[in-house]
């Protein structure tokens, strides 16, 4: 095959894998974002905290058990954050929850730094190595595993939201808390679950990311918050698949920018794409809900 074409497909596959990781971190974030209608500053630190937990647990327990434990723990912490940081200030001025969330983020970050130090740690590669070569094209297995997992999550979550009673109730809550409660929906019992899902799937994305790049560090926190937010804005607030598509586009744009221009443009191109799309369609590509100014 033409080397240029090979390079193109190689970049495409990498971009899809990177985008899939953004998507995983973004889908859980998306629901919480809708609920709060503002950036959840605690999400980034929570998913990294969970990834660190899985890292430590892997030293003791079998890997699947370690990951599951970390995801569940992050879900639990997500619920705790809702209860302690968000619920008491639910009706306060919109900056207040943002600040109290920053407080929660700081607590998680400080604990992480005490336990795991401030340096990045080498994360075991849990993904299969090797590749399949077809006509000069190297199809890395790990890319397909990542894409597969994120597809599974987004399809699963979309079905959950559409076809289960709990999922439907969640959609109502996300659209309007007060109207949802008028339907008899117990909002204070369901909201913590939404936060739990956000934490749970955030850690799935975090573990995928860390094993893809072989590293886990606290810096992934702020990075994750920004990428997840960007993916959600890009794809459109209010739908699971919106966050998924947004993550994919962001990953593709960044990977192509660094593959064809220079890696220095990687971040910038991501944001140029966001601005361009928001100018054309203010609700995001697949958005249901208008994005409010933060």
């Amino acid at each position, binding site marked *: 095959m033409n080397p240029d074409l090979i390079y193109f497909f190689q970049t495409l596959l990498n971009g899809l894998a990177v985008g899939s990781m953004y998507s995983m971190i973004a889908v859980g974030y998306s629901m919480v974002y809708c609920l709060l209608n503002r950036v959840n500053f605690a999400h980034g630190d929570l998913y990294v905290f969970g990834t660190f937990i899985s890292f430590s647990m892997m030293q003791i327990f079998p890997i699947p058990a370690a990951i599951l434990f970390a995801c569940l723990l992050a879900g639990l912490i997500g619920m705790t954050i809702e209860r302690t940081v968000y619920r008491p200030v639910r009706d306060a001025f919109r900056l207040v929850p943002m600040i109290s969330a920053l407080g929660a983020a700081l607590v998680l970050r400080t604990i992480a730094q005490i336990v795991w130090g401030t340096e990045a740690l080498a994360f075991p590669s849990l993904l299969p190595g090797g590749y399949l070569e077809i006509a000069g094209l190297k199809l890395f297995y790990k890319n397909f595993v990542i894409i597969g997992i994120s597809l599974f999550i987004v399809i699963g979550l979309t079905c959950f939201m559409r076809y289960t009673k709990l999922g439907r*109730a969640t*959609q*109502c809550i996300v659209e*309007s808390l007060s*109207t949802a409660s008028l*339907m*008899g*929906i117990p909002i204070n019992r369901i909201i913590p679950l939404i936060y739990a899902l956000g934490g749970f799937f955030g850690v799935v994305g975090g573990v995928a990311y860390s094993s893809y790049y072989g590293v886990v560090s606290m810096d992934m926190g702020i990075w994750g918050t920004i990428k997840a937010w960007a993916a959600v804005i890009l794809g459109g607030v209010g739908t699971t698949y919106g966050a998924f598509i947004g993550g994919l586009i962001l990953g593709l744009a960044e990977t192509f920018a660094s593959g064809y221009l220079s890696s220095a443009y990687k971040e910038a191109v991501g944001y140029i794409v966001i601005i361009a799309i928001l100018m054309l369609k203010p609700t995001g590509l697949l958005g249901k809900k208008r994005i409010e100014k933060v």
Partner: protein
Amino acid sequence: MILSVENLWMYYGQVQALHDVSVYADEGEIVAVIGLNGAGKTTLLKTIMGQEKPASGKISFKGTSILGKSTNDIVKEGIALVPEGRQVFATLSVYDNLMAGAYIRNDNKEIQQDIEKYCKRFPILGERLNQRAGYMSGGEQQMLALARALMSRPKIMLLDEPSLGLAPVIIKEVYEIIEEIRKEGTTIFLVEQNAKRALSVSDRAYILVNGEITMSEKSETLLNNDAVRRAYLGV
């Protein structure tokens, strides 16, 4: 007496919104509360639904107090509110809105039968079943809001200005539906600025002025009361 509110006082911070309000509804009645902008109509309904906390007073449903219960528990008791401005779930389909209304029920087969029933009664809902509720007109959204509230099979329905922002023909239709709902056994407690409609359909009515009930009479009597006619009917 299916619903009774006694000596309700309610404040928003320093602002007094309800001043010693006592109202009730008997089973099968249509009761109206008439008041101008800012009289406290919405506040009264929100307080009954547990969405606002009163400073003092009693609220009971079928003889037992519901004061202090959460909104979702109050809905489970059998009270449904059609809120001001309809508040349909705009991004959800008409079908999903109706399903949301049936949240407290678990009899799936009957839920589907009810949806079919309301699609016949409100043909527009049947036509638009899979479209987003936000794309419907105000009148169509009002039909959806009514059907959605009925999906919970309430014993009493509270209506917050069902005629708000609707064309006269639609208002007429809405009020015909309200009468039908009562005929099927659901008690109606509605608040309105549109005194003419509300007084012609209701059995009894209250006049609410600045958070205070100033009159409580048979609706017919109020329709012929000079002060009421001047203040609310523009004659």
